[in-house]
């Protein structure tokens, strides 16, 4: 398993745990006297699960197991692969931190955090598509 795949898969496991913790905390809201602001974690819960866990696990396994791009570059561009990892994770963390902060303190002028998160995740997704496209080929 290549190093980048190990980073993707181990990170995805951490996001799975994080997503389920957030889900559990949100569920406890109906049982314990927790702050009402926790409802703002809904989008973070969904995206920790679907981007951090599901998509990131897929990205790691695809990078590892899809047909070779070429003999010289079996996994396509390693740089694009690492860019995917860095941008996706930077964007997701910015979102997960920024979204509740903005919900709790809308006057703080932190909207740029979400704009930056959006840009990072979008570029990360496009880098993955670009690097994977050439590896989808008939035998």
């Amino acid at each position: 398993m290549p190093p980048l795949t190990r980073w993707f898969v181990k990170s995805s496991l951490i996001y799975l745990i994080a997503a389920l913790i957030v889900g559990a905390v949100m569920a406890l809201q109906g049982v314990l006297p927790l702050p009402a602001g926790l409802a703002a974690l809904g989008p973070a819960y969904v995206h920790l699960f679907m981007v951090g866990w599901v998509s990131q696990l897929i990205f790691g396994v695809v990078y590892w197991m899809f047909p070779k791009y070429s003999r010289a570059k079996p996994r396509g561009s390693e740089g694009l692969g690492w860019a995917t990892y860095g941008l996706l994770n930077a964007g997701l963390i910015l979102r997960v931190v920024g979204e509740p902060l903005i919900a709790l303190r809308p006057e703080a002028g932190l909207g740029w955090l979400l704009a930056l998160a959006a840009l990072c995740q979008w570029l990360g997704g496009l880098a993955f598509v670009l690097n994977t496209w050439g590896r989808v080929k008939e035998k």
Partner: protein
Amino acid sequence: MPRLSCWFIRAALIYLAAGFTFGALMLFNKGVPLTPALWRLLPAHMEFLLLGWTAQLAIGVAFWILPRFGSARGNEPAAWAAFALLNAGVLLAGIGPLLAAPPLFFALGRLAEVGSAVALAVHAWPRIKPPGA
């Protein structure tokens, strides 16, 4: 990788790019408001990423790697039907609400998605077998 898997996986990558683009626009708009109209992308964002990307990639890989019958992959027309129905369904159910199409488009999209799942099961069921069977 067989031809049909290439079609499934390339379509999945296109939906990933489109779904991420829609999501990025909405998230940007949440932080730095541009126009409330961008929230209309939400149904397409979810449909494209859950079914167009995740489910379609899984189906494409399953067609490629599930056990075969010698060199044959069994009922291939059913798998092609799953591909056509899934993509028709995702487009109708995802883009219909975005374009304010009549609710019938959304319902037809969801029905096509059900049809794709049935076609997939018809194709894949016999391939889920012990080695050599």
